[in-house]
């Protein structure tokens, strides 16, 4: 930084990170493990996101999928835009730029001692995994842990090996479903809301964390209201076009809220009167 900036940090300047592991989770989702080029590690809390940049292409906001109890940063990148397309072609050792972490967090402190219910639709499992892993690493701090996972089709399922390990654990419940039946699948078939009646924990007293595609929220929230979960016990994790990540550029606004700063994790009671939210 030059003289005129007088040591002021440039909020738009990314820091380089090296891809230390990469693997495809399915046909479109790439898992990345990153390490800081300069050494050290990122300070973040489950629920936050980073701006990932490829110099020459641009930046994209990506949820953090790892837990701060792990080393490095794990992201899952869907091959859907110009930046992510280039990231998909990158190999171990290649570098990306990282800004952040930004945004609000899951209630890791407030939820202590309470039952956790994660409702994940598709790629919504990715940011939820951050809190799931955090809770598993602090297992005695939380009550029961239930994870519902809905995926459009068999081939799109994410984190398959990890989910299998979770299913073996006695201290958590994981229930999966896929929207449409498949020859290799003998589990539940139907959308994720059909799993809600299977939850054994006392739902109205649990913290319910919801993340999925835009269309999912309406139905999940209706189902949760029906079984009497109070709005302030529900957390949703929203996607918007967070371009700057620092509350300036205006792209991620939902009415008066900035998803990059007030979100991406919102208490549903704070959003219920925000028409553009869902």
């Amino acid at each position, binding site marked *: *930084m*030059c003289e*005129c*900036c007088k040591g*002021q*940090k*440039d*909020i*738009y*300047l*990314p820091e*380089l990170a090296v891809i230390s592991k990469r693997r495809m989770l399915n046909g479109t989702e790439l898992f990345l493990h990153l390490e800081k080029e300069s050494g050290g590690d990122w300070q973040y809390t489950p629920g936050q996101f980073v701006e990932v*940049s490829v*110099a*020459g*292409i*641009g*930046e*994209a906001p990506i949820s953090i999928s790892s837990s701060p109890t792990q080393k490095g940063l794990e992201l899952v990148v*869907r091959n*859907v*835009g110009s930046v*992510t397309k280039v990231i998909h072609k990158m190999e171990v050792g*290649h*570098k990306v*730029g990282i800004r952040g972490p930004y945004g609000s967090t899951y209630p890791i402190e407030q939820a202590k001692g309470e039952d956790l219910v994660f409702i994940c639709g598709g790629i919504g499992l990715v940011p939820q995994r951050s809190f799931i892993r955090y809770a598993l690493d602090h297992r005695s701090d939380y009550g029961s842990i239930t994870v519902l996972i809905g995926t459009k089709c068999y081939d799109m399922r994410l984190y398959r090996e990890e989910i299998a390990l979770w299913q073996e654990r006695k201290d958590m419940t994981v229930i999966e479903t896929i929207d449409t039946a498949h020859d290799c699948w003998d589990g539940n078939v139907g959308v994720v809301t059909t799993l809600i009646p299977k939850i054994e924990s006392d739902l109205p007293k649990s913290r319910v964390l919801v993340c999925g595609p*835009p269309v999912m929220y309406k139905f999940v929230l209706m189902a949760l209201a029906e079984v009497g979960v109070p709005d302030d016990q529900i957390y949703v994790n929203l*996607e*918007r*076009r967070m*371009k*700057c990540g*620092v*509350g*300036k*550029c*205006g*792209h991620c*606004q*939902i*009415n*008066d809220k900035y998803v990059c*700063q007030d979100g991406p994790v919102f208490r549903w009671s704070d959003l219920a009167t925000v*028409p*553009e939210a869902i």
Partner: protein
Amino acid sequence: MSVHTVTKEQFKSFVSALIASDRRVVGVQAKGDRFAFDDLKSAQDLRLDYDVTILPPKKYVLPQQENLLTFQVNGQSQSVCHQQKTVLIGVHPYDMAAINQMDMLFSQGEYDVHYMNRRKQITVIACDVARPSPNVFASSMNTATIDHGYDMLVTNIGSSYVVEVATDKGKELLSLMNGARDASQNDLGARKAVWDKNEGWLNQHKLDCKPSFLPKLLEKSYQHPVWEEKARLCYSCGSCNQVCPTCYCFDVQDEVNWDLKTGCRYRAWDGCLLQNFATVAGDHNFRKKRADRFRHRLYRKGKYVPAKIDGQIACVGCGRCITACTAKIANPVEVYNELMKRTEIG
């Protein structure tokens, strides 16, 4: 700090001295039958008698396109610094109010070093409005006059200018102004008369409520039919955003140089009326309907941005959007008055 009086000839010499200095000097000039801020080559070209400029002086604090970083492809990025000292001559009070608001927005929360560096390099010589433009409504928005933000304020009192020096940066320029004498009581009285007049007559469209009432009005108006009625004619061209002195939304893009090894990341003005403003990768548009985008702009001006800047309304009444709108639907006064008529405020 101090108030002086200079003759118009003396002021002209002052502008010539500024142009001769190492500063970049920008001033209002005629452009066809309208006016624009542009680099000033001769004091002769300065037009302090203008009504309104096509674009606001925003383009000097937040340029249409501005480099944020330079980078090596696959490598490190470096911040770009903006170091050119600039004098901006002829900023009207409503535009000054808009710059004051942006100063707050870019420095609060995460400090935007690019905007703030550029802003610190700028010395603003504001000037009071000489005549109303066809669509100005600054009197309705309490921005027909201004008492802070500028480094120097110039008021035409007929035969001469009253020059108020408000900051150290303004004082620095005063040393180039030969012949300035302390303003007399008469001069100050004449300046007050200009202010009183401007507070009344810069009002081609009259807002039926105090601007401070707008957040409360909008709280009750979200489902109002006016959004759909007006937006039916909207071309989603974003002209209202582009000419607005308080719109500051921007897009960020990368550009690679011809060597394919280096490049820059820049930001450029964006507009919430444009169709894909809220579209994410995968083509999901979170504000797909024209009426929703049309409403968003007027909510930002009247409610969302005010909540971030101590209640100041983010419409300063310059009237540029009214002039720029092809469909003639952008007039904020028309919309807000319509809401006043048909909304019940409890």
